[in-house]
């Protein structure tokens, strides 16, 4: 057994320049991305005042990935959503007003989709999730503008 392990390590260390085989890569890279379901029946946070499902996820300047601090909020929300079968949410991204407009839209959309992807990984039904990136065309209520807000439907 030990000999096998040593052999494997030797094999791996001897091929440092060869790209990592797919089964050793970070599983997050391999995650399946699901297309968004139809938007029928979802209400926009612009049309009516929707209630947030949890606290807003604050992103720092350039980040597009979820951090440790977001993880806890997203996990507890996922737990809640999996237990209550019929809850649907809309995940809306916002970006700071000082960013170039189109980049702000892309950034906020990307962040909203990253939150959606994590919720799906945690077992939430993809059909219950919709995303939208408002960029800096609209500002969310609250002190920070670089946020993703998850609204209850």
């Amino acid at each position, binding site marked *: 057994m030990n000999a096998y392990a040593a052999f494997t390590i030797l094999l791996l260390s001897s091929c440092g320049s060869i790209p990592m085989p797919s089964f050793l890569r970070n599983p997050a890279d391999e995650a399946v991305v699901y297309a968004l379901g139809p938007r029928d029946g979802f209400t926009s946070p612009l049309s009516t005042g929707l209630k947030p499902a949890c606290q807003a996820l604050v992103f720092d300047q350039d980040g*597009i990935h979820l951090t440790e601090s977001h993880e806890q909020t997203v996990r507890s929300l996922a737990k809640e959503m999996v237990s209550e079968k019929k809850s649907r949410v809309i995940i809306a991204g916002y970006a700071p007003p000082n960013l170039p407009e189109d980049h702000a*839209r892309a950034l906020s959309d990307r962040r909203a989709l990253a939150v959606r992807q994590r919720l799906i990984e945690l077992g939430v039904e993809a059909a219950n999730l919709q995303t939208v*990136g408002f960029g800096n065309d609209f500002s969310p209520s609250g002190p920070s503008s670089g946020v993703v807000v998850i609204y209850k439907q």
Partner: protein
Amino acid sequence: MNARALLLILTLAVSLGTRAEAGIMDTLRGWIGLGNKAKSEEQKKSMPRIRIGPFTGGMAVSAQDALRKELLASREFFVAGDDEKIDFAIEGSSVGGRVTGKLRDAKGKELFQRSYAAPGLDENLKALTDDVIYTITGRPGLATSRIVFVCDKTGKRQIYVCDAEGGDVHQVTHDKHGAVSPSLAPDSSMVAFTSYRSGFPIIRLLDLNVGWERGVTDTPGSSFGSAFSPDGTHLAAVMSFIGNPEIFVSDLNTNTAACVSDSVGAPASPSWHPDGKHIVFSNDDGDGPKLFVVEVPQKEGGSSRLFRWRTGYHFCTDPEWSPDGRNIAFTTRRGGEWAVAIKPYPNGGAHILQAGGAQHPSWSPNGHFLTYIQHGELFVQDLRSGNRRALLRGFGRITEPRWMR
């Protein structure tokens, strides 16, 4: 191919002509890489010399005066007097605001004759001037060109159109929750934009002449950053209905879309090369947006090559290809402030055209000017002289200008 070569020669000839009198700013720009072709003969050619010949009809005198103003404002010609040597002559007639114009060359050969019957005399003469410029220089004139922009004057972001002088401003959208991210069709007849009328961002198309409007996308997720292809038949835009934002190219006739990018980040602001075969866009993988160029597949199912285009700056957004395809203007950040930069494509050194908060550059149709936003005001800068002026001031906060013929 021949036609394109001829166009290139004409472009060169005219850019040489204007260099002669532009002075030190041009020399400076020569060093940093703009207009760097054929330095040796730059003094030999000058602007085409044009004469306003006899006009007939009831409004002949006012037509001649207005035409002279338009030709001088275009800065494409030397307007010659009656006894001076000329390369071209315009003659025509004007009755009750209608205009018929005829362009002849130095030998008296007729190059074109056309009638203009729009309601206003000025409008007709602007159209005539642009036709004269196009016939002689091969590049579109600016008199009939339009700039589209977003303004929050009414409290919501809505789309406005103005002319190249900052006049004739019209609000063209009145959508609930606003409309943003506009792009003009190459003939200025249509605007594509992102509408929030349903509460969600969807791309719509508005015909400015007829007034009808239709949806292009109503997909889940977001759609924004639309850009017309040079022939006006396709629209590049960012869409995220596949669960990931990507650059899509939609055929406006069939309403089918093809994905051209392969991103794990946040792509934005596609802009077409004038050949219609390449698109430049910004993409943020989590460490600031960078510029990428992708080939547009010409056949269905064709593969497209995608590569990073390095500019030497860390933060690059809103790229736009110049009308001759030889430069790309973009927004970057210098010293904590926004700046507009230009870099020759594919190679050459980038330089900052305007710092101090300038952003979102867009080229004039003839490539001689760049419009951009600085602190919510719309500016135009002459790339030959370096002079700039505010087109629209105190008109709410203006963003996202785009300039088309």
